[in-house]
């Protein structure tokens, strides 16, 4: 095989048994790899009856066929599981260079099942794979564990994927930390692994990835690199990464502030955490993931104030919002501290921020008081309280025990008024884009398979020719950001495109529509693997993958009712700023109907139909849904 390594590593922790199986080539072709293979495997291994509390949940790591190759931005790692916090389909994707190492060691997927009696970690040294005792390492911050493992195994080049003390102590949104600074954060994969007594994976690989058509592949990779670097906004990303969007959002009234009560921070306060402040006072140099020209991460140092001495990879847009504007915290040093602490101790900075934001709002409204918080005042922007709660949450003590449940479950403990202030979809806190004035993003959040998310679709067009837009969408209405027209079709398209990227192993940031022409992915994958992919075949793979994720959720009872947003975005228009008065109320249902029609699903129920599934080769999925009475009713159910 070319591109793919053709091997799946299976680790049964209960029996302490390790097996290596062949990757079925037809399956690889149909589901591409990483996210796609992971979704199909999860669907097959996890019946709807399996509880999200069960230690039998498989955790599937994956590296796609292009990972570790010349393709730019090809370091992505995927994890798929049944989420312990949402109880539905869960996955996460990150950068760094762990995934290439997995490929060099010879593996496309690693499946962890069962539960170990005592803490262990997996050591993959090419094809010598062993489970090692992790009892001395359990409970320690991830950065220390990373170094101790490298010392114990004797090679600084070893790559690690580890859980931290937060997951081990029971935080429901525990993460997996890759080589210290990159994270698999969404949906709590660290928590699922912690319940298995599984500390993580150390890997070293000395092999390579053969390419089917090397000359053509090399040329295509050069072309894509040039395309990215020639884009007008490329330079901005090399300077600021996603933080660059913060200034834009502030200026255009799209910056989630104070639990989305506002869409813009007060200018004089925002000035303390602006792009200029970062560039002049905190930024040291650029950092990049594997083979990536975008270098959107940056090394920071805090030079003064109470957090002086903090160093690491910078807070991105989400961190600046989640622990900054969302909490009315305008202390950049504090945000840097929280970026480091949440990464090192192993919890999702976004879910933490979302939960704290809920807590601050219910505190402001008097639904909770210091009696409930154990004496901690939760006035907006109180950095001392935020730091104290971080420690309590990691240790699952005091009010931290509530924060550690995540925003939906925490809010449910305090009544229906409190629940209205939980900014979550399908059980996970929302990413930080103001959606009331961004229809396609609002729709994307509502339909994302894993909940609360913008990355399942990332419906952004940043450039590209009119010919390309018309070829891909059939209309250029997708470019009109404020109109609901064509957005249903667009979000479905982007979900398929992102499923492809997450499955072949490329970074969505680098392959934004306009930085590259997405149609180039087809020859790229063809030259690498030797398998003939046209663009429509490739996008059909994306559609297939997304339908499997949907079916997984449908079997667990989800339908149209769950494809929605918190009431705030329908009932409370933006209060002030450039986009004052915007709301999704009047347009949402129409966009959702359009989306279901674009997907070939029944708009009334939100369920899939048999014919569409069979057309994608998902006959067994159609049969399962039919048996369980979870196909679209009426004439579509043939």
């Amino acid at each position, binding site marked *: 095989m070319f591109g793919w390594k053709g091997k799946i590593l299976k680790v049964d922790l209960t029996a302490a048994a390790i097996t290596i199986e062949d990757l079925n080539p037809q399956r690889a072709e149909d589901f591409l790899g990483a996210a796609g293979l992971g979704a199909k495997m999860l669907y097959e291994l996890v019946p709807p009856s399996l509880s999200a509390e069960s230690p039998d949940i498989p955790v599937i790591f994956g590296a796609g066929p292009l990972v*570790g*190759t*010349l393709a730019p931005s090809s370091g992505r790692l995927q994890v798929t599981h049944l989420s312990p916090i949402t109880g539905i389909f869960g996955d996460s994707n990150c950068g760094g260079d762990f995934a290439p190492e997995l490929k*060099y060691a010879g593996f496309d997927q690693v499946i962890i099942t069962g539960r170990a009696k005592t803490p262990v970690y997996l050591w993959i040294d090419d094809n010598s794979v062993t489970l090692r005792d992790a009892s001395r390492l359990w409970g320690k911050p991830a950065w220390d564990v990373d170094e101790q493992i490298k010392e114990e195994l004797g090679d*600084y080049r070893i790559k690690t994927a580890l859980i931290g003390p937060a997951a081990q102590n029971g935080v429901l949104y525990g993460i997996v930390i890759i080589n210290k600074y990159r994270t698999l954060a969404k949906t709590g994969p660290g928590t699922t692994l912690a319940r298995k007594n599984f500390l993580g994976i150390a890997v070293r690989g000395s092999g390579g*990835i053969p390419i089917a058509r090397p000359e053509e592949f*090399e040329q295509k990779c050069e072309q894509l690199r040039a395309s990215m670097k020639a884009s007008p906004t490329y330079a901005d990303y090399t300077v600021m990464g996603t933080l660059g969007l913060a200034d834009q959002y502030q200026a255009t009234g799209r910056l989630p502030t104070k639990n989305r009560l506002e869409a813009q921070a007060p200018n004089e306060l925002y000035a303390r955490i602006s792009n200029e402040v970062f560039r002049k006072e905190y930024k040291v140099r650029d*950092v990049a993931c594997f*083979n990536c020209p975008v270098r959107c991460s940056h090394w920071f140092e805090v030079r003064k104030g109470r957090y002086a001495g903090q*160093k690491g990879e910078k807070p991105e847009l989400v961190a600046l919002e989640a622990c900054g504007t969302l909490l009315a915290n305008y202390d950049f040093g504090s945000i840097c501290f929280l970026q480091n602490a949440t990464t090192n101790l192993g919890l999702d900075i976004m879910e933490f921020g979302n939960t704290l934001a809920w807590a601050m709002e219910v505190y402001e409204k008097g639904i909770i008081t210091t009696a409930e918080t154990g004496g901690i005042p939760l006035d907006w922007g109180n950095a001392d309280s935020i730091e104290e709660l971080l420690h309590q949450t990691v240790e699952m003590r005091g009010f931290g025990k509530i924060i550690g449940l995540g925003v939906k479950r925490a809010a449910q403990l305090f009544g229906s008024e409190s629940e209205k202030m939980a900014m979550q979809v399908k059980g996970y806190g929302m990413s930080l884009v103001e959606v009331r004035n961004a229809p396609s993003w609002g729709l994307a959040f509502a339909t994302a398979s894993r909940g609360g998310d913008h990355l399942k679709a990332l419906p952004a067009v940043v450039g590209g020719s009119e010919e390309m837009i018309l070829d891909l969408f059939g209309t250029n209405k997708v470019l009109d950001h404020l109109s609901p027209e064509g957005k249903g079709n667009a979000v479905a398209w982007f979900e398929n495109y992102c499923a492809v990227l997450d499955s072949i192993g490329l970074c969505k940031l680098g392959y934004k529509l306009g930085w590259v022409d997405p149609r180039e992915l087809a020859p790229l994958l063809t030259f690498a693997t030797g398998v003939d992919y046209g663009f429509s075949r490739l996008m059909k793979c994306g559609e297939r993958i997304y339908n499997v994720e949907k079916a997984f959720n449908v079997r667990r009872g989800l339908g149209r009712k769950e494809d929605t947003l918190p009431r705030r975005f329908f009932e409370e228009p933006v209060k002030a700023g450039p986009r004052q008065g915007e709301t999704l109320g009047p347009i949402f249902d129409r966009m959702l109907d359009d989306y279901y029609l674009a997907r070939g699903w029944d708009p009334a129920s939100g369920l899939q139909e048999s014919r569409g599934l069979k057309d994608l080769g998902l006959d067994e999925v159609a049969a399962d849904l039919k048996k369980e009475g979870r196909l679209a009713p009426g004439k579509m159910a043939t």
Partner: protein
Amino acid sequence: MGKKVLTVDLNRCTGCRSCEVWCSFRKYRQCIPENANIRVVKMDRLGIHTPIFCLQCEEPFCREICPTHALSFDSQGYLTWNKERCVGCHACLLACPFGAIWASPDKEIARCDLCKGDPSCVRHCDAGALSYTAVSEIENRKNVLLAKKLAKQLE
């Protein structure tokens, strides 16, 4: 002008390892950084990444220790490796003070040969950290940067 060599600006290296993967592809037509002629060391508590490569010493320890004269200077003064003469003893690995020679499959060694004058790593270093420059000009860019900083103070 003199010999041209590889040099790196450590403030620009992002740790992306494009140099490794493109170097290995040029050699083997497959992506195998393990056998590249350039390796990046990451100091991840400091955020500093350092590509390591043959420095083209004027009086190389590796050439001195090689028992079969497989390492020698070519007509233009560049250190080159002759595979036919090599017996795979790996004494050069021990001798190089920087560890810029690595073992490779069969009896090969991995050592930067400057791609016959058009280094692939430099061409693919998107951050502009690696350059291929005359020895006499290595410090030029840094000198100019410092001079500019000092001048700013006096403006």
